[in-house]
């Protein structure tokens, strides 16, 4: 698995540096312009893993690398597990980068208090919102990759890109129409949502919600990895 992680990180190293710099500059500028520091971590935490994931998947199909990789002493299980691990590392890096960018903005605002747009960003900084902004990309990316990667493991990137948008569209339509389709009473979720809302009023409660989201995302991601291993084991090249 180490070989696969190394292979992925060496492949995207150059792009990761370029995107880290470019996206950080863009999102800091955007956050100052829009007066919203909480968009920094989700922006980086979604954009970087999303684009680097598809960069890696595209490189798999160039140069016959995906086929040649399997003649190396790497099991198919390790190829898949390594890919999931390297994308998790990219996600973690992006979130840390996002938090660092937030710190830069906060530090800049304290050194330049006479710039109202900058000062406004840190004046009403909320720890709960920073935590939630860091957790949001974890949930989003984990769910996105958990759906996309098994399709790619089974069909390859070129074929899977035809099915991925359809799959997401079905999920969204089911979500929007679930009240009609599954006869759901959304009012029955109110007590649960009220509980979540009251937990988010404290830092400890926010951490607890963050922990739950991370745990659920991790379970979904692991289940997706196991499915991808099974699908990849049968694939012919």
């Amino acid at each position, binding site marked *: 698995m*180490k*070989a696969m992680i*190394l*292979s992925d990180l*060496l*492949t*995207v*190293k*150059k*792009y990761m540096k370029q995107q880290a710099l470019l996206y950080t500059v863009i999102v800091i500028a955007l956050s100052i312009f829009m007066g919203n520091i909480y968009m920094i971590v989700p922006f980086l935490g979604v954009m970087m893993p999303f684009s680097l994931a598809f960069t890696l998947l595209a*490189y798999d199909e*160039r*140069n*016959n*690398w995906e*086929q*040649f990789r*399997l*003649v*190396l*002493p*790497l*099991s*198919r*299980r*390790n190829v898949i597990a390594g890919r999931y691990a390297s994308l998790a590392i990219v996600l973690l890096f992006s979130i840390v980068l996002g938090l660092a960018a937030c710190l830069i903005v906060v530090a800049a605002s304290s050194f330049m208090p006479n710039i109202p747009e900058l000062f406004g960003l840190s004046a009403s900084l909320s720890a709960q919102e920073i935590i939630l902004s860091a957790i949001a990309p974890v949930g989003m990316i984990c769910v996105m990759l958990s759906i996309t990667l098994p399709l790619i493991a089974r069909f390859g990137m070129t074929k899977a890109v035809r099915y991925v948008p359809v799959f997401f569209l079905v999920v969204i339509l089911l979500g929007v129409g679930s009240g009609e389709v599954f006869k759901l009473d959304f009012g029955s979720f109110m007590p649960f949502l009220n509980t979540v809302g009251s937990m988010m009023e404290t830092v400890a409660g926010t951490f607890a919600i963050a922990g739950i989201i991370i745990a659920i995302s991790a379970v979904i991601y692991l289940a997706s990895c196991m499915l991808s291993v099974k699908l990849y084991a049968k694939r*012919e*090249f």
Partner: protein
Amino acid sequence: MNNLLDIRNLSKHYDGFDLQNIDLHVPAGSIVGFVGSNGAGKTTTIKAVLDLIAPDSGSIEVFGQRIDAHMSSSQTVSIKQRMGVVFDTCSFPEEMNVKNVGKLMSYCYTAWDSTLFERYLDMFELPRDKTVKDLSRGMGMKLSLACALAHNPELLILDEATAGLDPLARDEALDVLRDFMRNERHGILMSSHITSDLEKIADYIVCIDGGRIVFSVEKDAITDTAGVAHCRVAEFESLAESGFFAPGDMRYLRHTYGISVLVPDRFAFAENFKDIALDKASIDTYMGLMLKGETR
């Protein structure tokens, strides 16, 4: 003699193509040249050996261990540790440079020898900081060969590995392969269209056509013993009736100005038919007569 690779009755069905009852063996200490036209089944056979596709029937044993769906992944990995593979293109990720390719290989192979890898890089004059996408075809092939050899494999599988190399680069590659074969426990399965390379280096020639093995002979039986007789029509008829060939064994090809006949033993033929023009056989002419020739 131990066989490093044993393929028995291998079959695989695709729409429009069938690999049927393929038998192929690579004895230790031998180079087996695998020839055939485009689409004959060479790469399909090699993919089955490398576990990239699952055969429909038959058996494949590498280093005495059977490769099939029941084999554990750790067993498959341990077999691959002892094999080196080179495809017809340099298949590493384009953005990696030569040095990082070596680093990646060191993580893959437990027996990776970085000193040996560096020696190959110097021998092939490969710049460490050049990315795979900036390597010429010949340099890419040399990098692939360096990676295949630098973990001291026992079996090399080369699928059109010298295609696209200039003659000097091919000779260089063949020298490296000869050096690899100094160890009698090593073996090579080499598919190639460049039959002149196989004439220089192979011990056995296996020919595949339309998914079936057409012939499997020692290379010397072709180049050192066989011949091609060039007959006029009258000579051909008297040759056919002479009894020199067993019924059904005579292979011939009609041309505009004569008939070529494949002769298994050109020395015996020359003694019996002094007036018929005779040439040494090459792998190309032998293949041509076996694949396209008529029989009598």
